[in-house]
């Protein structure tokens, strides 16, 4: 999936993946897509819940070699 911006949040523990995601999202326009890489497993449910509460759309998730990837479209 094509992303307008990629955020590397690997190695960071909660709450940092969300804090960084939120900051990166602020730099995007509505409709643009942010790709996020994390290693903290807890981020999965949190990113989904955060997207929902913020009106964003979590479009896709993937896991490669213990790296979790997320694509979120700004709402």
């Amino acid at each position, binding site marked *: 999936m094509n992303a307008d911006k990629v955020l590397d949040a690997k190695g960071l*523990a*909660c*709450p*940092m993946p*969300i*804090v960084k995601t*939120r900051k990166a999202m602020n730099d995007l326009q509505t409709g643009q897509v942010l790709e996020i890489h994390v290693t903290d*497993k*807890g981020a999965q*449910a*949190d990113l*989904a*819940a*955060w997207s929902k*509460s913020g009106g964003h759309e979590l479009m896709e998730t993937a896991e490669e070699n213990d790296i979790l990837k997320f694509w979120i479209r700004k709402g």
Partner: protein
Amino acid sequence: MTFKQMTAAEVSKKVINKTDLFILDVRNESDFNDWKIEGQNFEFLNIPYFDLLDGVEGILDQIPANKEILVVCAKEGSSVMVAEMLSEAGLDVFYLMGGMKAWSEHLEPVRIGELTNGAEIYQFVRLGKGCLSYMVVSKGEAAVIDSTRMIDAYLDFADDIGVKITHVLDTHLHADHISGGRRIAEATNAAYWLPPKDAAEVTFEYQPLESGNVITIGHTAIDIQALYSPGHTIGSTSFVVDQKYLLSGDILFIDSIGRPDLAGLAKDWVGDLRETLYTRYKELSEELIVLPSHFMIIDELNEDGSVAKKLGSLFAENHGLNIADETEFRELVTGNLPPQPNAYQEIRETNMGKIEPDNEKQREMEIGPNRCAVR
């Protein structure tokens, strides 16, 4: 104002002493609804940390001024952040050290009582997950039953009271938590006993635990008698300790009964479960004190934090033991089951020795409540 840490052990004391506590749980809503710290006088507010990144001003009016406040998250990081924000807003607060991860792993040893010849039995209460394990101690020796994977808790406790662990037993192949049985046995050179019918696929050596086995702890001082009691699993075995205590495993709990489906064969095993509960257990003395391997709700705890009740009282009060109609019983234990425990298939494979996940992975597999019972 200040923010300080509170340990899982300190929270346990508050659960047992029924102390007031206000818990601000900052995990996401679904994790909170799935599983949280339970206490009779605990009050809860669930606001995810990611909704508080701009500040805590919006929730200050929901936080009481006259109670201790504990901020809780999954692993600690977010609770420290929120606790710091609250302290800057003028409150005195605590955060849970190690988060729900530490809460899930904390074991609280409770002395249950004395047996013949000065022997003793202890219950290890895992409040965060509702798991119960046991140590029977006699004349310098000890047996550990249904241990959790936090084996240091048992090894250190045995050291502290000056006993050597000589036998390790599991009532059945667990599906809700990873057994520490094999590792304790390896660390202490103890014998590891498992019911052979549950151990058909295990990859390691064990002693077959069968009905009629008598295991002696501390030179004839105390006996553990095995009693085959299938139903939760096909091999499930109960123990009668010193003719006084019935360790019922996951067959019979205080306010619920075991579920027969976690090894995939609910319909086959429901008959065994009924036979065990309504016939085999009926033949035992009603004076036996039942010590199960789980509790489901905090109301099942006694005043001292233990989970124990006379078999006679359970026959009178436990709904699962009072269903005369067999069809209705079958319906209860196969038709209306709660969700299965997190990662229960992987947990079973770990307990068989088929897979060996690392510590972090094991911790993750055990997240959530035990869900071994039906009410």
